[in-house]
């Protein structure tokens, strides 16, 4: 059952098409990987799905309802939470306060928000750092905090933008564990990632973008053997 449908979405800036006629669905409960060379339009697609851009053409459907055209905070209310590539927590506040801020979306009181926040921190293995000022966190924990903030809004679907970029191997493993736990909770995930091994190992299906267009869709195995995909990445390596 498809939770999110991207129907023939195009996004034009000035005269240039950042994404052109992209269509795919994300099924409930799955992890969908979104990959492609730099500039392929992945983050633009997230920005459309999340409400920051209104698609020039096409529409985005969530749970059967049209969401393209809604503002990001409205989309979050409906159940889609999103993380950003450049992680910016509330720097001068503690880890706990950071998550409390997000938890207020669903919580009826500060006490309830705090309870949700503590639960979320335990879930993302940040409970011990809850009183640390987030400015002082290492990158791996900052990225987990970003995920925690998104989780505190009790989403049905999570859009993760390069949550694994720049992590060392142990941080990577911790994050992968958390993603698996999130999937077990029943939350659907769409994830942009450049780290090939990670994305191949955790995704149920993968969509590949290149120059703003979808060039392939399928299981990690199918994608790994797809000549178009290989060419897209090799082609980039050749011109680099």
């Amino acid at each position, binding site marked *: 059952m498809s939770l999110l449908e991207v129907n023939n979405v195009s996004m034009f800036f000035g005269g240039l098409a950042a994404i052109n006629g992209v269509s795919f669905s994300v099924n409930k409960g799955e992890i969908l990987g979104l990959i492609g060379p730099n500039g392929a339009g992945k983050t633009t697609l997230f920005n459309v799905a999340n409400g920051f851009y209104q698609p020039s053409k096409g529409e985005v459907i969530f749970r059967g309802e049209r969401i393209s055209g809604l503002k990001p905070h409205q989309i979050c209310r409906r159940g889609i*939470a999103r993380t950003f590539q450049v992680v910016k927590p509330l720097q001068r506040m503690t880890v706990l306060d950071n998550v409390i801020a997000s938890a207020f979306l669903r919580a009826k009181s500060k006490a309830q928000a705090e309870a949700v926040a503590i639960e979320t921190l335990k879930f993302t293995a940040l409970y011990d750092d809850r009183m640390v000022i987030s400015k002082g966190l290492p990158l791996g924990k900052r990225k987990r905090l970003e995920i925690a903030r998104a989780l505190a809004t009790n989403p049905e679907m999570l859009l993760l933008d390069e949550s694994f970029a720049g992590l060392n191997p142990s941080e990577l493993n911790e994050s992968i564990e958390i993603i698996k736990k999130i999937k077990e909770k029943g939350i659907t995930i769409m994830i942009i990632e450049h780290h090939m091994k990670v994305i191949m190992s955790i995704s149920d299906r993968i969509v590949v973008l290149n120059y703003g267009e979808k060039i392939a869709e399928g299981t990690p195995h199918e994608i790994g053997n797809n000549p178009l995909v290989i060419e897209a990445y090799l082609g980039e390596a050749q011109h680099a």
Partner: protein
Amino acid sequence: MKNFLPLIILAVLALAPLLGLSSYLMHILIIFIMWSVIGMAWNLLGGYCGQVSFGHAAFFGVGAYTAGMLYHHFGASPWWGLPLSVLAVALVSLVIGFIVLRLRGPYFALATLSMGEVLRVASENLVGFTQGDLGILIQQRTWVDKMPYYYIILAIAAVTFFLVKKVIESKLGYYFVAIREDQDAAESLGINTTFYKTVALCLSAVLTGVAGAFYTNYMGYIDPKIAFALHDISIVTIMVVMVGGVATFWGPVVGAVIMVLLAEVVRSIPQLGAAHQTLFGVLLIVIIIFLPNGITGDFGKLKKLFKLGRASS
């Protein structure tokens, strides 16, 4: 102990006039408390919510003129201006907010500066409404003694302080800071940033407007260059908060003390008098470069500068 600090300070300030202070000192205290109010109001929008307004004189002026015009056109007591300014300034802030809150960072700053100036020029030109450059003079002062004025502004300040504290410690406060740190992330986390910025602006404006209405009643005379002053109100407001410490509860109060003292010191030394803008400018530059989070915010830095506190290696 820390929790009782506000109440202790309030008690001290409430009892101070009973010591029999001179009229001049009372005046200084009243002005300092008024600036605390304006500073705390600005801090809500600028320090906590991150929307740096360069045009708070707009709200001060509308409040001041609400009181003034009530007196001038209807013969009513200008004290009615205080409750009425809440309404007037709230409306004006919604209109201004609708225009400027869609802008970010420095553009917001410039747009708010423009708003303050537009209102100033408008009130200079719409002579039928405001008497233009002639200004409005309140013929009979309500009281000759300064004490009643003192207690009124102190009450306003106390309400402002506790209101700001309550707001910041609530969901609103968290949302304001989230907006300040990263507006896009805040939106993505379900925060209706336009709505909450408007709330911050409206609250900040109304508190400033009440201070303006008080000013009309206390000083007895306003004109566009005074009530909508860019340098003497909008910029001084920013200085009060920046010197004292942005995004702290006590910052604006500390800043108000310093700025008012500084202004008085400068005024009393004849040679320095004309140079007060230079001194303020230099102070602003120094604070921006060395103590950007103000005295309360960068207190640690300040201690190191004067080598107080524990010596670090």
